[in-house]
């Protein structure tokens, strides 16, 4: 098949991170010829989700010393052309550390932090389930249910609602404890963590925020003042102020009032669309999202090749990219979209300055929820940078119901800004997993790493005009940045075209081979179906790349959406 592979494309996309995938899908959607290449054997790049075994493999690859294997591939160059070698995408990672922890509860084990001996025991148990742990390499995925991401991807991916938002509340001098944040009306009604009068104050405030922009007169006075001052003017108690700033608006108290209210409004208008919190988590991990866009791209005839390294880009004398070289083969294109980590060194200053923004990530597998409940919950928790915690840490806990780990185990993701994951997340880990108190979960596995936050880098000025660099995950909860970047790249490439118009419904598509006309004279007593259309479901797993490319019918008939 590869022998016949066409070598000329409108767009070649290198790397299957989310931004790249959205650009690929958008381009194919408007009829551009797209080639999508990734050197990995999995989709997602920095956004991928892994099984447990793949994590170990990934860790192995990323802890081995980065030897610069010089790309020595030969390729016939024409006059004025030169090769720009690609970089090792591993360059954005640092301080990767994977540990397996003692599974038995014998307190004697506490002296030595068990890192290696028990790993066999821990993993054998989990690998018995066919799809064991999945880790989201780069970021917990959460999305505002009302935002664009949902409009774009819900046809091709399944979502689950985050069922509760927690907060860490320090009361007086105590160490603090986890509480459910009352963010919807039913939460406020049932919560016992706010008093009767506070319930009213909180609800009133939430109602106000929902339509704050319609009452500008109430805001004038606070236009340039901090959000907290405004909260004080509304007579909110300290207790509610904590819930509002740290867990609903998710801001620090001194942000301008307007920004705080905007965040409140976004939160509140996203509520109740799919569930009791405004957040959604993609089933089977966030790695599903880039894949969803790949499916869309494939449906519109994008070509996919995985396990295909790209050694260099081909640049002509006018500093325009003509295409790339991969395994000695030359592919031509008018536009080249590439993961910034993968891009030639000189295109983006990555890793050159030590103080480049960076994310600290921690991924843990634990044996019970951080706040057990009768039903399995999908939990979001934001630890504010106060009471001893150095950084704002965003924490996501997912259980077996989301298809990311076996039943009764939980996977916890922590993210904050920082340069030393283990150190930055120390307080958070201490608070949630403690030092072995019986009520707290036991950590079975932990993985720390740091990742350069490419969203903060200049990705435009260094590259040729037809090479578009895409960043990896940022610290925000949502995908706004990725979508904006993808949209921006797309508009730069095709200013005249529409960005991802609505994907067609199955019955809007004409298949060449299908006998579209319904048969006449159907006897009533035959098994004529008068009800709804059949609902085909697609199992998102077990799909090989080839199948994906061929799966147009199947995918399109999948009407399974995240939730109703």
């Amino acid at each position: 098949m590869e022998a016949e592979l066409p070598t000329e494309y409108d767009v070649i996309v290198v790397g299957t991170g989310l931004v790249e995938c959205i650009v690929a899908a958008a381009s194919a959607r408007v009829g551009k010829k797209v080639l999508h290449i990734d050197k990995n054997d999995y989709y997602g790049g920095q956004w991928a989700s892994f099984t447990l075994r793949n994590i170990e493999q990934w860790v192995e690859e990323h802890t081995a010393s980065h030897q610069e294997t010089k790309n020595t591939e030969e390729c016939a160059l024409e006059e004025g052309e030169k090769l720009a070698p690609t970089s090792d995408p591993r360059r954005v990672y640092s301080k990767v550390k994977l540990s397996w922890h003692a599974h038995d509860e014998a307190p004697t084990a506490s002296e030595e932090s068990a890192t290696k001996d028990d790993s066999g025991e821990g993993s054998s148990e989990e690998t018995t389930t066919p799809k064991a742990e999945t880790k989201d390499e780069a970021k917990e995925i959460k999305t505002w249910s009302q935002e664009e991401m949902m409009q774009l991807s819900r046809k091709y991916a399944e979502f689950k609602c985050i069922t509760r938002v927690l907060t860490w509340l320090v009361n007086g001098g105590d160490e603090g404890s986890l509480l459910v944040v009352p963010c919807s009306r039913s939460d406020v009604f049932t919560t016992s963590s706010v008093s009767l009068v506070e319930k009213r104050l909180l609800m009133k405030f939430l109602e106000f925020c929902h339509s704050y922009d319609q009452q500008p007169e109430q805001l004038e006075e606070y236009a340039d003042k901090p959000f907290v001052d405004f909260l004080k003017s509304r007579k909110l108690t300290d207790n509610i102020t904590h819930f509002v700033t740290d867990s609903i608006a998710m801001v620090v108290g001194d942000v301008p009032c307007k920004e705080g209210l905007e965040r409140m409004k976004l939160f509140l208008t996203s509520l109740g669309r799919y569930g009791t919190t405004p957040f959604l988590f993609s089933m089977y991990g966030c790695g599903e999202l880039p894949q969803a866009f790949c499916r869309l791209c494939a449906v519109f005839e994008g070509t996919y090749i995985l396990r295909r390294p790209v050694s260099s880009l081909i640049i002509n004398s006018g500093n325009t990219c003509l295409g790339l070289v991969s395994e000695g083969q030359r592919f031509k294109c008018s536009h080249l979209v590439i993961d910034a980590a993968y891009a030639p060194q000189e295109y983006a200053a990555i890793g050159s300055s030590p103080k480049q923004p960076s994310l600290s990530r921690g991924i843990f597998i634990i044996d019970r929820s951080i706040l057990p409940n009768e039903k399995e919950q999908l939990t979001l928790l934001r630890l504010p940078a106060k009471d001893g915690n150095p950084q704002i840490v965003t924490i996501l806990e997912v259980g077996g119901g989301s298809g990311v780990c076996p039943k009764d185990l939980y996977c916890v993701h922590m993210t904050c800004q920082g340069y030393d994951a283990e150190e930055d997340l120390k307080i958070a880990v201490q608070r949630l997993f403690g030092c072995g108190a019986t009520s707290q979960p036991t950590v079975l596995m932990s993985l720390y790493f740091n990742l350069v936050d490419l969203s903060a880098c200049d990705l435009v000025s260094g590259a040729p005009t037809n090479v578009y660099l895409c960043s990896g995950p940022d610290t925000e909860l949502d995908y706004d940045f990725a979508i904006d970047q993808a949209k921006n790249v797309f508009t730069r490439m095709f200013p005249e075209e529409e960005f991802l118009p609505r994907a067609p419904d199955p019955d809007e598509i004409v298949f060449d081979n299908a006998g579209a006309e319904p048969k006449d004279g159907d006897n009533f007593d035959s098994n004529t179906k008068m009800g709804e259309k059949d609902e085909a479901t697609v199992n998102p797993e077990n799909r090989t790349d080839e199948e994906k490319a061929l799966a147009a019918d199947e995918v399109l008939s999948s009407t399974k959406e995240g939730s109703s």
Partner: protein
Amino acid sequence: MHGRLKIKTTAEQAAEKQKEREGKRKLYLGGVTKAFEKRSSGTHDEEGLKITAQLLAANPDAATLWNFRREILLALKGDDESWEKLLTGELAMVESCLMKNHKSYGAWHHRFWVMMNFPKPPWKAELSLCDKYLKLDERNFHCWDYRRFVVLGSNQQPEDELKFSQHLIEHNLSNYSAWHYRSKLLPLVHPPPSNTPHPISEGALIKELQTVVEAVFTDPSDQSPWFFLRWLVNRQEKVPRMLQVGYVRYKGDSGLVICVFSQPVPQRAVPFIRLNGADSDETLIWYAPNDEDYSNVWVAELNLSSVEAHTISLIIDPSMTEMLNVGEGSTQAIEWVTTLEVGGEELSDTARSTLEEVKDNCVTLDELDPGNKWVLLTLVDVMWALDCHTHQKKIHSYLSQLQELDVLRNKYYADMKSKLAMETSLKQYRIVAEVGSKFELSGHSLTRITLSHLLASTASIDLSRNDLTSISPLSNLVACRKLILDDNQIQNLAPLAGLKALESLSLTHNKIQSLEQLKVLEGLSALTELNVSANPVCDLDNTGEDIRKILPHIKTLILR
């Protein structure tokens, strides 16, 4: 490689839809014809089931088809095992119809029918079906009905149903159906002791109040929890009791025995009566002044010689006899049977403090959200339940606020004000007044008369300077001799037609327009004094003569 992906235009789609619809219509009509043919030829076979199933799946509201289907089923009924199999199939079939329209009368009715025909109905599965459909539409009354039926059949405990309603309310506090269901279940699970005025036991009351107050603080604009809250705090007297007995002479030896009850009761509730220690019951003809089957007041004629003393024994029940002594020459004898207050039983300390707490919470809520009608209305209820006399001023001012806030129900609040005035002054009257003395409630803008049965034995009543239009409750004033109704809007005097003791009636400044309206008083032989001045009727020619003609007993007639 597959071909280029083509997307249909909207015109193509519309044409296709149109064609599809045409086809469906043909199929449906063909099916209906076939089914009707079968029915008229009396053919009950499997094919009929198949056809009706398909038709009903497309249109679950076709009642005739459901009927035909039941006829076929009954015709095909075999032994228990096959019958059960057939019915199980029906359940699945009905559910597919419900998916199409989950408020289909026909489909739900069929499901009832199937379940009632089952040898061993699969109740448990039906309960989860209810859960499912109530999740889809939490106020689906078909499904609520069906759930009650299933609960009854499956012997599901009310405790579990209570939990279920709790769950629904926690999910959405606007689920009125769930609150209502709760009010039906609570008295079963937590029945109140017989001597309390609450709908449920005290412990449960406190707990429920706590929950519902949290709900109203969360969203005071939602009326569902308010209805529940008002139901909880309203006092309800469960067993009617006899309040008062009396004997009133109206003319010579003629007199009336009067029994007053706290609630309307049927005639059989009236006690037997024995005279002067006799050992057999008197045969009396009891009647209700309002001519209803149920009445607060029951009256019977009893002639007793006025020159001697009498003892009337009222046998309320075998263990309780009330004695009424009518002295020599006295015109009346009245006894209170029960000493309880007007509104029913006294509150316990716990209930009182709980209600006080609800009151304080509502006051707080009123400060936080001024102008919320439900807050005010509940305050009225709670204060009323606590003590309408002490809180009279407050309640009155809340009602005035409500009249402004909720203009559409202005009259309703005016009626409540009347009730308040009536209740408080009656309470006062009972405390200070001697039996049979004068009751006066003039100048209170009364729009409505309540609790008139408590005045059944009162001899002199003044309700002048109010806004009364209807005086029908006054038929209870069977012992009244002097009645003043000046300055009202009264037209119809019929309710006074049975007041045999009435001697003096004043009706100045009302709306009596014709002689006809006065004619209803013709049977009142004791009535000798009538004042109808400042009524339209006085402007007619020869009014005085005409009135005297129809009411010959009148000695003093005042027209101007």
